[in-house]
């Protein structure tokens, strides 16, 4: 059964928002991603058919945004910023640490189904580099080895992100507010 078969109302509503049908590609991808964690080739095919686009076009748009996942993700998808400021701040070492700790690479999911990892382009929080984003949640900033360990431990215990106590001077999870960090 298709993903959108029982969402005809939602589709009609979405199409109505745009002058062209193909413009609905983004919200449709987002919907699938939110519900299933990734957009499988079958879903890409389905979206292409609904919008009259080729699978290549859907893949082209999807791959432009690192948000859309073409591979299955874990419950917590850890996105490590690897652009300039974070790279200087130690994003590569952070990545190695993650790979060692979780024993996975990009595209894998840990056996318990909890974690998957990805390097992403600039998250726009250069002053608190290096930065990790978990799913759609606020950033985890100024990530050190110790803070990373605490973060993973907290997530494994099933805590919510804001409940996790991270060591270190700076605020544990900062809601994109640079002033708190600098304090």
């Amino acid at each position, binding site marked *: 059964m298709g993903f959108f078969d029982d969402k005809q109302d939602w589709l009609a509503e979405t199409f109505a928002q745009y002058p062209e049908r193909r413009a609905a590609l983004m919200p449709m991808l987002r919907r699938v991603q939110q519900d299933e964690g990734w957009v499988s080739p079958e879903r890409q095919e389905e979206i292409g058919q609904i919008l009259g*686009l*080729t*699978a*290549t*076009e859907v*893949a*082209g748009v999807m*791959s*432009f945004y690192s948000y859309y996942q073409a591979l299955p993700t874990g419950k917590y998808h850890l996105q490590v910023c690897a652009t300039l400021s974070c790279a200087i701040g130690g994003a590569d070492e952070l990545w190695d640490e993650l790979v060692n700790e979780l024993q996975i690479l990009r595209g894998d999911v840990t056996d318990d189904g909890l974690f998957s990892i990805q390097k992403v*382009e600039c998250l726009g929080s250069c002053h608190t580099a290096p930065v990790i984003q978990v799913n759609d949640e606020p950033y985890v900033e100024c990530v050190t080895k110790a803070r990373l360990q605490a973060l993973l431990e907290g997530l494994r215990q099933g805590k919510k992100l804001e409940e996790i106590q991270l060591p270190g001077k700076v605020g544990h999870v900062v809601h994109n507010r640079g002033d708190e960090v600098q304090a």
Partner: protein
Amino acid sequence: MAKVTVNDRTIEVPNGTSAMDAIFHAGYDVPLFCAERYLSPVGACRMCLVKTGAPRKGPDGSFILDENGQPKIFWAPKLAASCVTAVTDGMAIDTLSDEVKHAQSGMVELTLFNHPLDCPTCDKGGACELQDRSYEYGLVEKFYQPGELELPLYTRYEMTRRHVDKHHTLSEFITLDRERCIHCKRCIRYFEEVPGDKVLDFIERGVHTFINTEEIEGHQTTLPSNFSGNITDICPVGALLDRTARFRGRNWEYDSVATTSMDDASGSGIIADTRSGFLERIRAQERREVNEAWISDAARFGHDWVNEGRVTRPLVRRDGRLVEVTWEEAQAAIKAGLAGVPQTRIGIYLPGGATLEEGLAAVELAQTLGTPHRDFQGRTETPATAFLAASFDELLDAQFVLVLGDPSEETPIVHLRLSELTRGLKPASKLSHGTPIADLNIKENVPRDRSKLALFSPYPAQLAKWAGASGTHRPGQEAALLAALLGQGEAPAGLEEALEWARKRLAESQKSVLILGANVLNAPEAATKAKQLAEKTGAKVLCLTPAANARGLEALGLYPAKGGAAWTEAGPQAVYYGYAPTEEQLKSAQFRILHLTHRNALTDRYADVILPNQTPYEKRGQTVNLEGRVLPLEPVSIDNGEADGAVAALAVLAEAIGVKPPVRLVRQATKLLAEKWKLPALMGRWNIKPASFQPSVSSPQPSTPVYLRPTMWRREQLTGAVAKVVRVALEASPEVARAHGLIDGATVELETPAGREKVTVKLVQGLPSGAMYLPALGPWVGRSLEARILVGGEA
């Protein structure tokens, strides 16, 4: 018109011209990578940066003047990409200042950051736009010389280059080197705009961007388009390369000859590249009126057969075996073989790709002999010359086009011109440098105008995607369909609405064009109705004939006279065939002269004399395309031994019979065509008076026909890479297959005009019930056979 000053020259160009074209029109140069003729300009590569300025009006409404009393030019604060900048009246463009040169050399430096410098092993080397532009615009010493005594820096980039996938097989015909790609987007725009198959796109972004297509099975990819090869022509670097020509030679080693493709009736211009007597590569030649700058994959990739297994010397049957002889000995054998055969019982049959000169030689000889047996292979039951031909310009100008057939396979260039029609494009204007390179009238992702096209075909055709109304019908229903359009009868079930729409559009359009496939031309009743329809609506017609030169050969009179045997029939006592005919035809004749490029088991069994023939690539002469346009054929230097064309072979035949050959040389025939037949000069359109034809009675439709459906490929082309791509399968809808006890994937043997053929069965959803489909791969296209399936082999 807008007056533009480029550096020191002032020119006038039409409004809406791009600054880039104004610069070329003025005779100056500007570097570019992403702009391309017939494609939309997008300003992706930023290579064509120039300084632009314009006069400005003061508060009083008059131009602000400089100290000399001339309108003062206000220069734009930043440089602009000239390909996406439209000219304005009074505009000034500067391409020579240091500022511009510095920016352009900076762009070359940026483009070369990650470009692998593997030019010595790159097939594009020597014909590469990036190479040329780097030399011309890349290094300007004064910007990159750190000190007076130091050498200039070629690049300031100090990190390792990006390394990505090399030699990626995009399809059987095209290889992609992702390191070499400079992201100009030409190929992506080409697929979306020209053939309308959006099969290629950018994946990822930034420095990771690469082009890719749909993946089938694992990481294998394919380009499902009949026009994929054109991207190898327009790629400015060696990223997209023609696999059939890869590593065959360096660009400067090739002998390049501009000639005409005889693969279909479009008369596309091609450039044939040969090296040491082998045809190695075919590229598109720009022929604005016909194929613009594009050719079909069959015309481009189907050339390997020319190099393999050629007949290079005449052969004569002695003691039951074919032995190589000289032309003189072959002539003696013909003389002996024809002794006692009345001249009126000698048949002369040419291939569909014969030139006008050859056609003339055949007609004149047949008249001299008084034989009614003359024809050319692939002639349709109704002559194409029965209709007044439309030109491609008239096609673009039409308000409505009705297609009966499948242009994408029968004459692929028509598909591209219909693509332009639905995008509302008009023929490109011409500037002093030719076709505009950055034509601002062409846009990306234009919605297709579906009100201009209706399509009906015996199986689902590609072009239906742009048609306002379309439908599939059973083969043989064409006449009923046309009767409904004429208002003479009931529409076939299921097509009432579509036909009604088409009828209304035809009636309200002043200028309309009919496109008739071989299925209509081979059904006399349907063709008669099509002619009535054309006369009633004043529509001009494009006939998608299976023979490339059908219009020209018909106009010369190369068809059977009263009592003569057509190319589909057996009859004459002695025969000259310019191709390999059917077994029945060979069997029924007493003496057979075959003028062939390739032998096969059948010809080896029956031929009395085999003469070496030229392929259309090797011929000199003229041909006429489906518009009636006279086009040149130039000989390409392919090693063919002692092969000669039909003009020479027919002269040999005439002398063997004992008559004076009416035409002995190609040059003589060309002269005769110009003087006696009033053939216009090259590229002119031959005004052929519409032939009258006797509407013959259609032969009864087989109960379950096997319809020989058109493909752009021909049987002889199925070697090498082409053989891997073109799968000959008997296609049927699941219901038909069930009724005949056929299982998907089973191998069956089938009787076809080309002999018995082993094919696999393929079930296809959506095919009309009541018929099966087999790719014709040649001149028999558009006809139906009685299904005589000999089930055998393994399921």
